[in-house]
């Protein structure tokens, strides 16, 4: 059997400890993914549902529509055929259907309900437009004016574009800070830290192993989030998105330092994790991880600017979905690095070997 280096052995021990702790894996990967599915899946499709239409008897206008137009018509209306006009109108009154149509000679009569005003307006407008265009077509003359409608938002403003970087930032902040807090506190309380101090392993090797594992977890989180976003929710990454990798690495270090601070101050491991959670969760809200801060009052937006997670989120939004160049990640990286340095120095000062 091959002998492992101290660095490999320590990293492996930490990875195993992480993967076997269901709560850690849940909070690092599954929990944020639940939010991604929730935001990405439920809120992404903001378009109106179809209008339920009851067609009473033969309606030549619809039945004889050319195939191309019929497809367009079917995008707006869900058609059910029936022969009973009174029953159809009763259904519309109850709200089970949105409109009932019948032909009276050359007139298309639509019995609609005002319950849903948007659908009522859509029904009238669309039916009128189809009647008009049919009249034009029957006249044999090409239409004089044409309308071409284009949405000003492109697909990149869909909900998924906004929530993926924010939720990824939150997920990394959680797992990095919880991991560091639990490790520092747990190892100190079990005296494992003392035990390692009495082994020939250098502090650099020990810290290096812990940092490597946390960065590895963060990059795994990134791969899962982006992979799922692109594959399942139509996430589209813009040009400089690889610049988010170094940004995320520095962000991970920053949140590890926050976790170390919690681990150094708290007496128990649970206390340390709770303290990290107490710091990270409000920060996630204030940093726009869950919803944009555009509508927030100015003072709140000002507060957000001093939070490391805000910088991580903004940097990732810029390079991942807003199409900014890689240089947009530079300032956030510097801010996060400065944060990490200050907080690490503070926790080193506050660290005590004895908890009592």
């Amino acid at each position, binding site marked *: *059997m091959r*002998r*492992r*280096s*101290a660095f*490999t*052995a*320590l990293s*492996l*021990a*930490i990875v*195993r*400890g992480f993967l*076997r*702790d269901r709560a850690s894996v849940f909070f690092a990967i599954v929990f944020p993914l639940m939010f991604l599915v929730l935001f990405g899946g439920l809120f992404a499709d903001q378009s109106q549902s179809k209008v339920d239409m009851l067609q009473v008897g033969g309606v030549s206008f619809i039945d004889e529509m050319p195939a191309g137009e019929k497809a367009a018509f079917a995008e707006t209306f869900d058609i059910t055929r029936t022969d009973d006009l009174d029953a159809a109108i009763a259904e519309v009154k109850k709200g089970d259907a949105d409109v009932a149509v019948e032909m009276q000679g050359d007139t298309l009569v639509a019995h609609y309900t005002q319950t849903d005003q948007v659908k009522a307006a859509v029904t009238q407008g669309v039916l009128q437009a189809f009647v008009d265009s049919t009249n034009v077509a029957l006249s044999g003359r090409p239409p004089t004016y044409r309308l071409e409608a284009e949405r000003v938002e492109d697909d990149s403003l869909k909900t998924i574009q906004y929530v993926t970087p924010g939720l990824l930032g939150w997920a990394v902040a959680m797992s990095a800070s919880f991991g560091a807090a639990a490790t520092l506190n*747990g190892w100190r309380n*079990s*005296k*494992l*830290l*003392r*035990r*390692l*101090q*009495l*082994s*020939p*392993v*250098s502090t650099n090797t020990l810290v290096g192993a812990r940092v490597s594992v946390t960065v590895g977890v963060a990059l795994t989180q990134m791969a899962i989030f982006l992979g799922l976003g692109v594959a399942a929710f139509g996430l589209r990454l813009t040009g400089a998105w690889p610049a988010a990798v170094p940004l995320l690495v520095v962000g991970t270090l920053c949140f590890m330092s926050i976790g170390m601070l919690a681990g150094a101050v708290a007496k128990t491991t649970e206390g340390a994790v709770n303290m990290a959670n107490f710091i990270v969760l409000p920060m996630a809200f204030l940093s726009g991880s869950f919803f944009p801060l555009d509508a927030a009052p100015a003072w709140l937006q000002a507060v957000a600017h001093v939070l490391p997670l805000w910088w991580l989120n903004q940097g990732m939004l810029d390079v991942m979905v807003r199409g900014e160049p890689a240089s947009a990640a530079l300032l956030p990286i510097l801010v996060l690095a400065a944060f990490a340095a200050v907080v690490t120095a503070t926790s080193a000062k506050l660290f005590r070997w004895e908890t009592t």
Partner: protein
Amino acid sequence: MGAAIEVTDLAKAYGELQAVDGVTFDVGEGEFFGILGPNGAGKTTILEMVEGLRRPDAGTITLLGESPWPRNPGLLPRIGVQLQSTAFFERLTAREQIRTMASLYAVGPDVADGWLERVGLGDKADTRVGDLSGGQAQRLSIACALVHDPEVVFLDEPTAALDPQARRNLWELLAGLNDSGRTVVLTTHYMDEAEALCDRVAIIDHGRILELDTPANLVRGLDAPTRITVATGQLTPEEAGAIAGVDEVLEDPAGVVLSTREPVAVLTALAQQEHLAGIQVQTGTLEDVFLSLTGREYRA
């Protein structure tokens, strides 16, 4: 035989509390050395300073010819340490645990597995450390302390919090640790443990060494009577009091207890009267030594 450890005038205070107050002792190579005392006597602080975990306020320590403070990486592979609590990586199995420890000392997995067998945990190799019993966890942590075959091994209360049966089982393992010339330093608050395992014992109280000698010498130097208990129904207290050399006679549920400073004469007399069936002989113990040194009952 040279000295593996030399400690001179060691002192350490925590705020107002003088935890260690002028302690001097040597431990010879291959010796099994015990530091005995009640909780809070300063045993662990002495041990942690010798290991190099704490800086002494005063005094000098030489461990294998070198100074353990500040952290001395050249010295660390030559010593093995078992800390008071069982310091493990979370959620690893026993085998993963000791192999990880072995890797830190550049020792291969085969050697690690061998130690697992040697401490009797071969069938627990795939058990997570959190699921081991107290005795098994102590065995694992002792194996982890020995995996790199250190010259000196420090064991800090290895049998604390174990039931009496598990303690006795662990003694068998501990007793063999210095067979190959290894030096062993053990702290304990169990008198019988120090008596059973140690070549020499330092009795500590309030941060000072009260006495330092072999267990036999400590007891011998003690002017304590031997107690002989004769099973009930063989001897009346009056008959017992008539035997030459008996100082005092007591009755207790087990029988008649004779106190004597001439046990050989008394035992001979009892043998002649054929009262030896179920006889119990109790000589002085370290408990008695502690009582005579401190004037108070030993409290663990």
